[in-house]
């Protein structure tokens, strides 16, 4: 399968196979007016299978969302058809309005205007908890 290379833009590589579409939605890439390609189940020596997203524009990516959703991805910045920067992603210490608390006993269940804030409480196991009720985020 052939997909055009991009001249100026971003390649999100090493996405866990099957999660490409979820990342596309979380990053709200459907709102862009440039070309975006989601390539699924690509052969990878490192991962076996992986997904890739190519964005044909140099946009501000929300690294926190990316870090939370799939922290093993790499982000390649392309300029004039050449790879100029390779960024690795860290788990963000806190996420606001990225994940939403589903605990019906949480104050966020009744107060609609409160931001949903989750904090990284266990780095090793990548666990985020709601700052209000401490409910664990489920991916």
């Amino acid at each position, binding site marked *: 399968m052939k997909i055009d290379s991009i001249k100026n833009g971003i390649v999100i590589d090493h996405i866990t196979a099957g999660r490409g579409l979820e990342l596309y939605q979380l990053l709200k890439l459907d709102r862009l007016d440039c070309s975006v390609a989601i390539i699924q189940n690509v052969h990878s020596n490192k991962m076996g299978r992986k997904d890739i997203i190519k964005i044909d524009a140099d946009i501000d990516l929300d690294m926190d969302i990316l870090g939370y959703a799939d922290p093993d991805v790499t982000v390649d910045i392309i300029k004039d058809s050449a790879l100029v920067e390779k960024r690795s992603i860290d788990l963000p210490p806190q996420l606001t309005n990225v994940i939403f608390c589903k605990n019906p*006993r949480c104050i966020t269940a009744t*107060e609609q205007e*409160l931001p949903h804030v989750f904090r990284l409480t266990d780095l090793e196991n990548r666990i985020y908890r709601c700052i209000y009720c401490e409910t664990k985020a489920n991916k």
Partner: protein
Amino acid sequence: MKNLIDILELSTEELDELIALAEDIIARPEKYRESCRYKKLATLFFEPSTRTRLSFEAAMYELGGQVLSVSSGSSSSAAKGESVADTAKTVSCYADIIAMRHPKEGAPLVAAMNATVPVINAGDGGHNHPTQTLADLLTIWREKGRITGLTIGLCGDLKFGRTVHSLIAAMARYPGNRFVLISPEELKLPSYVKKDVLKNRNIPYTQTTDLEGALPELDILYMTRVQRERFFNEEDYLRLKDSYILTPEKLEKASKTLSILHPLPRVNEISVGVDADPRAVYFKQVLNGKYMRMALILKMLEVEV
């Protein structure tokens, strides 16, 4: 100490300081009688409570301060749909310190994020109840002379029992303590509490459904009520509510130096016959709660006596 939302915000040094201050209040109450003169405590209780609200109010009065009180959600602006954040901002204009109880988990944290005066969590749903833990710690200290090297049995609703989670978290930070978790299968301690507080820190614990079998090895027995308000399903509540009932007969197997605590109110999990047993200290625990709240108010208002 700006706010107290979770007992773990207090270091063991701060807990020790509060215990020492409470001991001094007990020994010399007259010294503190005017210490909060012209200060006002607002007790915002959006969920029914007798002892906690009265304990806070008694604590403030005994320090010479005054109290502004909301005793149910339906009699406040919350009934008109006011947010917790707005309530906290408004009450900050009237009071020097706020104690808040709310049925929703995290509501006191929202209040603390918006208030300009210190906020004490007086219980948020099934989540945290740090001042109950302060009462528990002072009681253990006064009964045992230490809060280290103890075998602590916790019995009843260990799943939804917020006082249980906070007490385990607080006591696990002191050396030499071990826990015996006694509950029906459906009300076992949540796995994240076990993992985060006990397993990860190699704190010894055992789990059992057998109260009588566990009794002889305990220094402390912390009984809890199965709380109707924590269940979405009435059938589950009715099936589990009488899982454990402590009676004088069962206590025959317990150590002579056992201390029996209960955060109260009790329903029938401790028979009234146990009250006369010198090992039953749950009403002393109520009194200790008032002293610890006095100590906490003094610390949070930064009043030097």
